[in-house]
């Protein structure tokens, strides 16, 4: 018999009106990285919450290290050596790394917390697994990647030998992802088992030993990663063939739509983040901005869309200057913006989805007359958009908060594209989404291009940049350092350019 650390056999979990998990088997071997793959809403998180003791299954059996167990709450899971790192970190910002790690199981000495010992323990643990965290640093001062390592340490500190990582790479930069992969490999070498919840196929291929696929709440299959490939995994997950290289005809760029001249932008601290940047986007083309996060992309978008004042330089839309106009004026001039952070900027989560669909246009006819809203018109409009863009929601009165990430993003895209803008700025439009939704969004962007709109795509995912863009502008340190065509370059070259190494082709056209 195989040596399994965790076995979940024939699990069924129901919620009122839906079966979230049914007939799912998950068997994790000691010292392996086991992927749990499925689309958004397929039931991965439910299954892991069952394992972590947050939900009780209606049917099925859980075994840990061969013994049948009943996990009634997360404390039981902790005692059994199961630790979970959630997608959204559970850390106290103003506490130090050590304070966060020991929270709830503090080492005591004469009734006070022995912080010296705790710091020593943390730094030993950190060294042993190569996690490189500073025990004395405050959480708010460290990078997202390091915060994640603190979360991992927190579970290890409590003696976990089975780690559940819930979409750990969704929040990381490519460099941080590489580091995390290294850490995961070193953890399993020391006997830790990892369950990796993800829908990123490339990561599975790179790091996992085996992969269990669930689809619409049902267990589909468990495969050895070495015996499969990305395409098979994708069709297992979605239940149909998925095309990764987005189909598109060559671009036919027409007149210039967006023109940026010598743009300089400061960030909130007053540091110059965009340093005399020039960029042009024509009608009927998609320009992808490749770059590592923090090289001025956010400031650039905010400057174009009016959310941030520029220091100097000009932004022209259809030859008319829109520099430093208010966001409303920029919107009315014909710019749509799919924001990077859909919860913070894209949606009012506590508004019904219908009201979110008119977030920029609520004051215009036919949605309002003389300052009075016409809810019939607003909701009719929302119903149409929801149908057209396949936003899955019970109805238009459902709060945006209740929708899955993919459907929230589809709603934003529906709203932004429907305005028939001249320029669409799409910042990280597919972050955190599954392949089905990604495919849909890429198709939409290309459709809009074909209708003659200019599209500016900002993404940290090279795949996305390579697949969707007609032209790639590499951004580094507040400037466009290279203009390349996707068919004339590759990820290695782009990676180097993004890291700031100059090459002969610099300057592009």
């Amino acid at each position, binding site marked *: 018999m195989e040596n399994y650390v965790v076995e979940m056999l024939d699990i069924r979990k129901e919620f009122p009106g839906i079966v979230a998990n049914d007939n799912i088997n998950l068997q994790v071997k000691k010292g392996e990285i086991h992927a749990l793959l499925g689309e958004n809403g397929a039931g991965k998180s439910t299954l892991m919450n069952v394992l972590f003791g947050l939900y009780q299954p209606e049917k099925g059996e859980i075994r840990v290290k061969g013994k049948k167990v009943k996990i009634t709450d997360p404390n039981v899971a902790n005692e059994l050596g199961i630790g979970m790192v959630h997608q959204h970190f559970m850390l106290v910002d103003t506490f130090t790394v050590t304070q966060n790690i020991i929270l709830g199981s503090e080492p005591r000495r004469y009734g006070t917390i022995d912080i010296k010992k705790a710091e020593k323990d943390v730094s030993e643990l950190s060294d042993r697994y190569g996690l490189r965290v500073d025990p004395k640093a405050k959480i708010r001062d460290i990078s997202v990647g390091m915060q994640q390592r603190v979360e991992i340490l927190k579970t290890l500190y409590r003696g976990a030998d089975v780690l559940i990582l819930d979409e750990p790479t969704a929040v990381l930069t490519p460099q941080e992802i590489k580091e995390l992969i290294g850490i995961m490999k070193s953890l399993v070498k020391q006997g830790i088992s990892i369950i990796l919840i993800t829908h990123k196929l490339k990561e599975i291929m790179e790091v996992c030993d085996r992969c269990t696929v669930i689809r619409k709440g049902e267990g589909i299959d468990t495969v050895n990663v070495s015996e499969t490939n990305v395409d098979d995994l994708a069709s297992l997950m979605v239940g149909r063939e998925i095309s990764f290289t987005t189909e598109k005809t060559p671009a036919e760029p027409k007149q210039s739509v967006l023109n940026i001249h010598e743009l300089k932008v400061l960030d909130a601290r007053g540091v110059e983040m965009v340093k005399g940047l020039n960029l042009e986007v024509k009608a009927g083309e998609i320009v992808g901005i490749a770059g590592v996060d923090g090289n001025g992309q956010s400031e650039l978008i905010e400057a174009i869309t009016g959310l941030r004042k520029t220091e100097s330089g000009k932004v022209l839309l259809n030859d008319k200057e829109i520099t430093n106009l208010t*966001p*409303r004026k920029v919107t009315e001039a014909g710019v749509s913006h799919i924001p990077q952070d859909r919860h*913070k900027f894209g*949606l*009012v989560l506590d*508004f019904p989805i219908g009201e979110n669909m008119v*977030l920029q246009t609520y004051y215009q006819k036919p949605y*309002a007359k003389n*300052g009075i*809203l016409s809810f019939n018109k607003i909701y009719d409009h929302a119903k149409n958009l929801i149908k057209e863009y396949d936003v899955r929601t019970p109805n238009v009165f459902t709060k945006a908060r209740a929708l899955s990430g993919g459907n929230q993003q589809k709603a934003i895209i529906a709203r932004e594209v429907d305005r028939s803008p001249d320029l669409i700025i799409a910042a990280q439009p597919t972050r955190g989404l599954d392949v089905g939704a990604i495919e849909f969004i890429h198709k939409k962007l290309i459709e809009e291009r074909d209708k003659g709109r200019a599209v500016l795509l900002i993404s940290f995912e090279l795949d996305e940049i390579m697949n969707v863009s007609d032209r790639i502008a590499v951004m580094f340190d507040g400037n466009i350092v290279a203009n390349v065509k996707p068919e004339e370059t590759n990820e290695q070259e782009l990676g180097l350019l993004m890291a700031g190494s100059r090459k002969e082709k610099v300057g592009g056209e």
Partner: protein
Amino acid sequence: MFSNRMFNILVPIISVVLGLIAGAIIMLGFGYNPFQGYLALIDGAFGNAYFFGETIRQVTPYILTGLAVAFAFRAGLFNIGAEGQVIVGWLAAVWIGTTIEAPMIVHLPLALFAAALAGGMWGFVPGLLKAKLGVHEVIITIMMNYIALYLTNHLIRNVLTDTKDTTDRVVESAALSSEWLMTLTSYSRLHWGILVALVAAVFMWFLLEKTTAGYELRSVGYNRHASEYAGMKVGKNIILAMVISGGFAGLAGAMEGLGTFGYMPTHSAFTNIGFDGIAVALLGGNAALGTVIAAFLFGTLKIGALNMPTGAGVPAELVEIVIALIIFFVASSYIIRWALLRLKKEGK
């Protein structure tokens, strides 16, 4: 089992019931009969025409200060300055009511408008500071309360009168009081202000739920970043919300100045009408209708409680404790929410 709407109605009701039960236990503990106590309370609020008139009279300013706090809440602001806005509104109404001569159709609306304007101005200052400099509105509104208290005292003593402690009575043409309502209720101080308060509640509901301005205010209240992204002027909305909120509270002051009292005395301490408005708004779920209902409850408790010492021998201090307990349970309504959710999970 429960829809969201049900939930929002159920939680405050359970809060009130728990508060009443806790109050009953306290009364029992001190050797008083809670049934007699509560009967005396109900009797004191609705037992005869006079009591009923007084109850409605008390409800009137509560509705308005409740609306003031609720309105600001909906735009994401905590207007703790309703108290000061009541006081300046009171003075402004009495000022116009005592110094101007005009027919009622002009005079009364003018006095009400002055009260709303004064309250609005008192809300404008913290709104402006919040919008332009990011100063927290709670701090400024607390300070504005003290400025209002001492400034009005000074004005009453030195400007409106010659070192007297009360102003003159407002003239007939600016008064909300009505001989008819008073005789109807055995000479309670009931006045027409209740209509003003109910109109204000309808106004708030309409403004927030039906207009583009209300859409912006709600959007800013929920998510400032998304509102700015969508092209709304966040600062303008913050100021507007505070001005309208202050206007409601100012009207509450007018209810006292033009209705209940007909003059303004100097105050050695706060009136508490504004502070009670916070609890009213909280209990009413920051919605217009909810606030009206909550104000009725608070007015009932306040007036009915006056009868508890004579009607059931329960000391007035204990009555204050019972009311405080109800507020406590309302404020901790998230515990009740949690318990209900728990029930919902297990009962499915």
